[in-house]
């Protein structure tokens, strides 16, 4: 890649930051060139983000319908899936799946709630609620 081929697409995913790429200058020597983004990379990143957002939105609707607990919503909102949350928390998947049901979630102790809240980096009060539903 030559330095004038380094994309400068002002990707939204960079949030104004610039990343370094290695490219050749006019004499063919490698130099570091700052890039403000590449549309190709941005599309892939946004796709991955959108996937979690879609899952979180599905989960949110399920919580509103009282089919799932807010835990499921916060898991996807934190860009985790079930295997990852199980690995991060050390809690078996079937137990997490159980905690995603409203009747089991409501019986979690303060300590267990705090454990989940710490993983998602939110407070217990936030863990118990979802956007669009004050309770």
């Amino acid at each position, binding site marked *: *890649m030559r330095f004038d081929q380094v994309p400068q697409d002002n990707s*939204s*995913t*960079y*949030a104004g*930051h*610039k*990343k*370094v*790429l*290695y*490219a*050749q200058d006019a004499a*063919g*020597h*490698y130099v*570091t060139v*700052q890039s403000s983004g*590449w549309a*190709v*990379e941005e*599309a*892939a*990143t*946004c*796709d*991955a*983000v959108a*996937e979690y957002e879609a899952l979180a939105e599905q989960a949110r609707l399920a919580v509103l319908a009282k089919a799932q607990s807010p835990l499921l919503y916060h898991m996807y909102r*934190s*860009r*985790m*899936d079930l*295997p*990852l949350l199980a*690995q*991060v*928390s*050390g809690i078996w998947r079937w137990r997490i799946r159980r905690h995603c049901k409203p009747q089991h979630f409501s019986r979690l102790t303060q300590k267990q709630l705090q454990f989940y809240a710490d993983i998602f*980096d939110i407070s217990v009060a936030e863990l118990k609620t979802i956007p669009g539903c004050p309770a």
Partner: protein
Amino acid sequence: MNFTHTQSAHCESGVIASLVTHAGLPLSEPMAFGLANALAFAYIPLVKLAGQPLIAYRLPPRFIIKGLCKRLGVKVSFRKFSNPVMGAEALNAAVDRGQPVGLQTSVYYLPYFPEEMRFHFNAHNLVVYGRDGDNYAVSDPVFEEPVTVASRHLNKARFARGPLAPKGLMYQVESLPDKIDYAQVIPAAIRKNCKVMLGAPLPIIGIRGMRYMSRKIARLKGDHHEQRLFLGHIVRMQEEIGTGGAGFRFLYASFLQESAGLLKDEALASASKKMTDVGDEWRAFALSLVQECKQAGAVGTHALAEKLLGCAEKEAEVWRFLQDWSRV
């Protein structure tokens, strides 16, 4: 502490290059990367990240630091902690002594990262070089400028759990070698790298791994949504995760060029040119992947597989050339 922040393409090679440079041995990021024989390719279907197979364009985390230091004779001390409080105390003590410290952290808990980039990736490296009350002065090699991070966030990032858990890993350069014999270490690094790329015993590593991924793409099943996630995942592993472009191929080409200058070797210079061409090919591959993601059938999975096979064969040629070169 006077610590020169250098923006780098990749976190691990950037951190170790700036730590070694700070200790008194000037080293560029491409040299750190190349001398660690860090370029690789692996497609591991059994290890899943967010439901997708692991695709790596370089050696696993920590291999760059370990490989480089072993080859150059730089001594680096590593410490892990079972207790976050002890980890924070050890970090404070080292920083107060005036030593820059490398840390392994999770990207997700670092507040200065752009929101879209915050995924649960546990092997991000950065340097802490100072402390002011409850804030750390952090030189994150993939950012333009040094940043400050509150201790609460940094501790959380150091002790994140999950795959590749950092467990508070911190490392420091202890001693440097008296001199470096580039005429010896450069061929040794290249020889080792050829071995990984051409002669790995598993069909999922090196050039054979690329061919394997190409077959996977050709036989891609599922609806467009699933295919899109998989193809997008390849692009992200190749371009987004701090690679300096084309899955580290440009970084390696830069190493070959610098080596050519050091050893006054024309063959290496031409290998650098060839590796650049390979990198351009990978960039074109990423472009067509995204076109296929945006619209099913725009390129077609078979054409994509062919393209990847083209990259693989072109790269294999460069490695065979380097293998012959390093044998002499």
